[in-house]
């Protein structure tokens, strides 16, 4: 809706707009303007924050209202439909095929393709390098915290994602890997329980049937950042429990993997 209001008139409405104190036609005009004007957008956000300070800060959340909220929470209940918010773009046939072309891969340094089978000798080096790279990813996100970077990855429609399922009876989703075209990738832990300190989770990429270490996830991973290289294609991952410090090759069967 194109409004008849001048910029000066619109600006004059911003305080009242932030308090929901304008008429519907004025609200519509301001909303349309905010799409185009970052300065007015900032001003409204500031007014809203100021007004929100007037809401009581000390009171406890009423416990009797939570049951009513919880009863209205719907979540996808099949594995295929898990995280539909994240899958939205991938639901159509077209974007599915586009995604298939972009299978994200794992930087394995000297290890490429078939050579991986005979390359255990350098795996130890790889573990160290990849761990270093994990640190680099966290540092590279600058002022942005890991969770903020991971959050934007989750909301990125171009991200590739695979779900790792538990390998025991239920085959429940245990974790998910989300990878951006930039190579930045995140593992989100959904169900992997905490480990004793003598052990660690270790993430492996399966390349030509061989597990290549991506890095150590620690004893109680929540969200872990790492880097992938799109030139080495894989979307198969596995998580094992290893002794603290990690292993050159898996010493146990996976507790979660993309193929059950």
């Amino acid at each position: 809706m194109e409004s008849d209001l001048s910029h000066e008139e619109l600006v004059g409405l911003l305080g009242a707009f932030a308090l929901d104190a304008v008429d519907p036609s004025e609200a519509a005009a301001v909303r349309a303007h905010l799409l185009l004007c970052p300065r007015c957008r900032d001003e409204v956000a500031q007014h809203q924050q100021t007004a929100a300070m007037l809401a009581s800060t000390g009171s406890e959340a009423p416990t009797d209202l939570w049951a009513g909220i919880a009863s209205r929470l719907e979540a996808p209940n099949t594995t295929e439909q898990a995280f539909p918010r994240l899958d939205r773009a991938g639901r159509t046939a077209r974007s599915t095929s586009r995604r298939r072309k972009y299978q994200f891969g794992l930087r394995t340094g000297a290890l490429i393709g078939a050579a991986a089978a005979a390359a255990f000798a350098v795996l130890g080096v790889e573990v160290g390098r990849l761990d270093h790279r994990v640190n680099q990813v966290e540092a590279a996100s600058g002022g942005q915290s890991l969770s903020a970077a991971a959050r934007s990855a989750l909301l990125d429609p171009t991200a590739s994602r695979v779900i790792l399922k538990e390998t025991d009876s239920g085959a429940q989703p245990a974790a998910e890997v989300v990878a951006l075209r930039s190579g930045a990738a995140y593992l989100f832990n959904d169900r992997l329980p905490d480990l004793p300190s003598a052990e660690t989770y270790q993430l492996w990429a399966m390349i030509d049937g061989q597990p290549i270490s991506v890095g150590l996830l620690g004893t109680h991973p929540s969200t872990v950042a790492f880097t992938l290289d799109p030139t080495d294609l894989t979307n198969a991952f596995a998580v094992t429990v290893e002794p603290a410090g990690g292993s050159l090759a898996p010493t146990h069967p996976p507790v979660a993997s993309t193929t059950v």
Partner: protein
Amino acid sequence: MLELSGASDATLIVAIGRWNESALGEVYRRHGGAVHALAQRVLGPGGRAQDVTQDVFVDLWKRPERFDPARGSLRAFLVTVAHGRAVDMLRSDTARVAREQRTARETATGGYDLENQVWDLALADQVKDAVGALPEGERRAIELAYFGGHTYREVATMLGEAEGTVKSRIRRGLRRMRDALVEEMGPVWNQT
């Protein structure tokens, strides 16, 4: 596993994006009180304020991406959503009659006893100071608009002022409060 009680609001939002109910519960524990208090302030005690409170958190569950941490705290976001919903409810047809009666009553009593009726909330001292430092005209306009759920036009009628005067008093008052809060609390004034 996600350690909820120590997680930042931003981390909780990510978890909510992954359908983690406990994360929503933690957000509710942290901010449900402020949301409900605001809804109650606008709508009065009772079912409507409770409905708004619950709707705000169900909404967050469905669309957590609407919260943009770059634009302010999660609490401010939730309170803003709650205010919009509460005002919508006030202005709905079924509520109009009661509202017109209320407006008439407020006009008849010549406004609120500001200190006692409106700002008597569990506000942080700094917020109380910032509110107290406002010129009375600005304070009253903000109060009637924000807590009374009135448009600036209605406020102008109630106070017998020009519409333009009320409109600019609201904007100037909000700016003045913000400046006072930034001065007292520093740049992180809105991070709670």
